[in-house]
Structure formats: structure tokens, C-alpha cells
């Protein structure tokens, strides 16, 4: 028990900030992955309604704006459905053409307004409906969530780095004397830092395992039981096996930089 406690005490002060940084990194990866899909689904479910005097093809629309990805013509009988009319056929012929336009991605409010302006320039187009108020609220909510989450990740990473700097000071206090003595007796930089490297790499591996476990647990327990549709839809994207290697590489990179900075700052007496 004593040895275990000693191990925990020795390692927790580095594992804790490393896990904070790795959580930040993995949240970023997962968030980026999920929001990409969500952004795409928002974009897919959104369309602009255009009323034209004459028949228009996709190329006709594309000449007015490069963001236009697809066009679907709404059948005119569809528009007249439910109406009790005597001469339905001639009325159908006199009706304008209705189009649903898909855009290539989730555009900002200003960019959407620009699309509308561009289409308005066409003489053939009579009317454009962008449903901007619904779009605006969805877009702004999405952007706000994205920004808040990004801020949280940055904040977590900064805290993690500060804790690592603190740990470097502790290392300096604990290992400087040994490294100085070893330098006096002719030890190379690698030999002097070997103890620290071994310890730091173990901590880096443990941190990567711990962070991966947290995400696997999130994926298999929390998300599965969650009532949130968006999370359930994207459960497969929450943790990939390849993410473990990204986390491992990142944590080893961070600890080796930290060790290197400590070692080069220790000068022999």
C-alpha cells in the first residue's frame, strides 16, 4: 500500500495536467468531428425557395451564385393542391416556376444575404424566400455552442500547461542536484535525463490510457443512456481507436519538451 501511495504521489502531479490537456485535445477532435456532421445535416435540411418567371436549370442558378449546390423544381400541381378550381390546367400553365435551392455549406447570415442579393439580380427570378429568421436562430445557436466549447477547451489547455510548468519547477527541485552531480562526473545529457524521461513517458502513457478510458466510458455508458438525439446519432464518432495514438503522441511530445527544458536549465557546479 505504501509503495502504491508513493507511486500515486510521484505521478499524479504530472498525470493530472496531462489528462487536462489530453481531454481538451480529444474534446476538440470529437467536437470538430461531430459538429462537421451536424453542420452538414443543418445545411442539408435547409433550402431557399425561389419563384421564377421562366424555367431555370442548375447552371442558370450557378451563374448567379457559387454557393448553390443543387436545385429541385417543385411541381406546380403540388402548389395548387387542395384548391377547388374549374380550369385547373390553364391556371397551372400561367403559374410561375417554384424551386428549392440547396447551398454547399452552412453559410453565415451575411453570406446568406449576399446569396439572396445575387439571385435578385436575375430578371427571371421574381421572388426569393430565405426563411432567414429560422436560419439565423439555428445558425447563431450553433455558432455560440461552438465558440463556448472552443473557449472551454482553450481554458482547460492553458490550465494544463500552467500545471505542467509548476511540475517542471518541482522536477527541477527534486532532480537538479542529481543531474548536476552526474554532469560533473561526465554523464551525457541523455543519461542525466534518463530517470526523468522514464518517469515522464510512463506518465504520458498512463494519461493517454486514462483519457481514452474516459471517452470510451462516455461513448458506451453516458451517451447510450442519454436522451439527447444529437449525441445518440453521433455516438460512433465520439472515440476512434486511432485517437489513442494521437493522444499518446501528444502527451509524449509534451512531456519530452518539459523534460528537455528542465534538463538544459540545470547547470553543473
Amino acid at each position: 500500500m505504501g509503495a502504491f501511495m508513493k507511486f500515486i504521489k510521484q505521478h499524479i502531479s504530472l498525470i493530472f495536467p496531462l489528462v487536462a490537456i489530453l481531454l481538451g485535445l480529444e474534446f476538440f477532435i470529437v467536437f470538430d468531428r461531430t459538429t462537421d456532421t451536424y453542420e452538414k445535416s443543418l445545411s442539408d435540411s435547409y433550402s431557399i425557395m425561389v419563384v421564377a418567371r421562366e424555367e431555370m436549370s442548375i447552371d442558370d442558378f450557378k451563374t448567379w451564385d457559387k454557393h448553390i449546390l443543387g436545385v429541385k423544381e417543385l411541381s406546380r400541381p403540388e402548389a395548387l393542391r387542395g384548391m377547388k378550381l374549374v380550369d385547373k390546367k390553364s391556371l397551372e400553365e400561367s403559374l410561375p416556376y417554384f424551386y428549392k435551392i440547396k447551398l454547399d455549406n452552412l453559410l453565415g447570415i451575411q453570406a446568406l444575404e449576399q446569396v439572396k442579393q445575387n439571385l435578385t439580380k436575375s430578371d427571371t427570378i421574381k421572388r426569393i424566400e430565405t426563411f432567414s429568421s429560422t436560419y439565423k436562430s439555428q445558425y447563431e445557436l450553433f455558432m455560440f455552442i461552438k465558440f463556448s466549447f472552443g473557449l472551454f477547451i482553450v481554458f482547460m489547455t492553458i490550465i494544463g500547461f500552467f500545471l505542467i510548468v509548476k511540475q517542471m519547477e518541482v522536477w527541477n527541485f527534486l532532480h537538479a542536484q542529481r543531474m548536476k552531480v552526474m554532469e560533473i562526473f561526465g554523464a551525457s545529457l541523455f543519461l542525466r535525463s534518463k530517470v526523468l524521461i522514464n518517469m515522464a513517458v510512463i506518465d504520458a502513457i498512463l494519461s493517454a490510457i486514462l483519457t481514452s478510458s474516459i471517452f470510451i466510458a462516455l461513448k458506451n455508458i453516458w451517451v447510450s443512456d442519454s436522451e439527447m438525439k444529437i449525441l445518440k446519432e453521433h455516438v460512433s464518432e465520439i472515440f476512434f481507436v486511432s485517437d489513442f495514438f494521437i493522444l499518446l503522441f501528444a502527451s509524449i511530445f509534451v512531456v519530452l519538451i518539459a523534460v528537455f527544458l528542465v534538463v538544459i536549465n540545470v547547470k553543473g557546479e
Partner: protein
Amino acid sequence: MPNVITANNLTLSYDQDDEVIKNATFIIKKGDFVFITGPSGSGKSTLLKSFYGNLKPREGSLVIGGLDMIDIKKPKLQELRSHLGIVFQDYKLINEWTVEKNVVLPLWISGYSAEVQSTQARRLLHHVKLSGKEDKYPMELSGGEQQRVGVARALAKNPFLILADEPTGNLDEYSSNVIWDLMENACQQLDTTVVVVTHRIPMVFNIPYRHFTIDENGSVYEVH
């Protein structure tokens, strides 16, 4: 006898304005036992530091074991240091390592096998009368015992040069005599060159020695 240390108009300083050692010229040969004395702050430890490459000469030349200390590169310096035995007043033992591990530090650095390290540790600890203390930690030993561990460590690789900075400065008379005996033996039996910085030369010293002194102006003289 070949030269081990050759200083020619050697000037040492920590900054541009303040010269600690001025124009020192001397030769120390293989097998010499040298005491360097002088008042506090005269530069005794500074001179010793230059011998193990912790301070580069500002002017003149200094050659240790055939290596020019002015142009010496890091790998060569590491190699030189691995062939020196250095003893400090404050022992400079690694407190989280056992006595045995401390003693074999120079062998570990040079990549000797665990078996060689273990055999040498037992022999050295017997030599400094610390048999049975292999698994102790430095903090569990008295000052005199810690310094004997320091001397054993200095002898671990049969160095061609032992440098000692006030090795008995923190010790009582009995422990000091033990340390001087060990130094005398190293010089006499192994033909190792020994350079000791000290405030006071011991009253009883059984082998011939040379005595350098540094005055307050940083000039080095041989007095004996």
C-alpha cells in the same frame, strides 16, 4: 613523469572586470600530491573548477591530461570528467540513491556491467571501511562516512587525477585523518595525481607533497 596539468599564464574570471586567478604558470606531474592553500575568496575553488572544465580560462592556456581546456568540446569534456575523481566539501552525494549506487556512479556513466559495478562497490566500500553500508542512504550516514563514500566514488574508475575541494572542511579530526589516509594511499599506491584545495595542510602527512598558495591578488606561487 608526464605532465597531468600544465598552466601557462592562466587567467580565470567569472566576468570581464574581475580576474580571480592572474597569469598562473605551473606544471603538475603524474603522481604529485599538491595542496593549494590561500585566504578565503582568493580563488582556490575557482582554480579547481577550471581543472574539471567548469570554468573556461579567459587568457593563457590550461592543458589537463593532454586536453586543451580552452577549446574543449562537450563530448571530450564528458570523457575527461569520466576519468577524474572529484571530492567536494559538501560531498555531493545523490540522496535518493543507496551508498553502493553512489559509489559506482562513474562506472554506471561509463556503461560498466552490473556485475563489475557490484564487485567494485564492495571492494571500494571495504577500502574506505564502510562494508555493510551498501544499502544505506547518504542521509543515514555521518558526515565522515558520507565523505568516505565521496572518496570511494572518486576512486571508482581508477582516475588519473583526483581533485578535492576542502574535503575535510566539514569533518572532525578523526574523520579528517581517515580521508587524508585514503588520499595518501591513492597517490602512493596507484600513482594517482591528487590536487587538494584546503585552508590548512594537515599536521601529520606521511608522503612528500607540493604546496601552492594563492595570494589575495590571485597570483599563484609554489611555496614547498
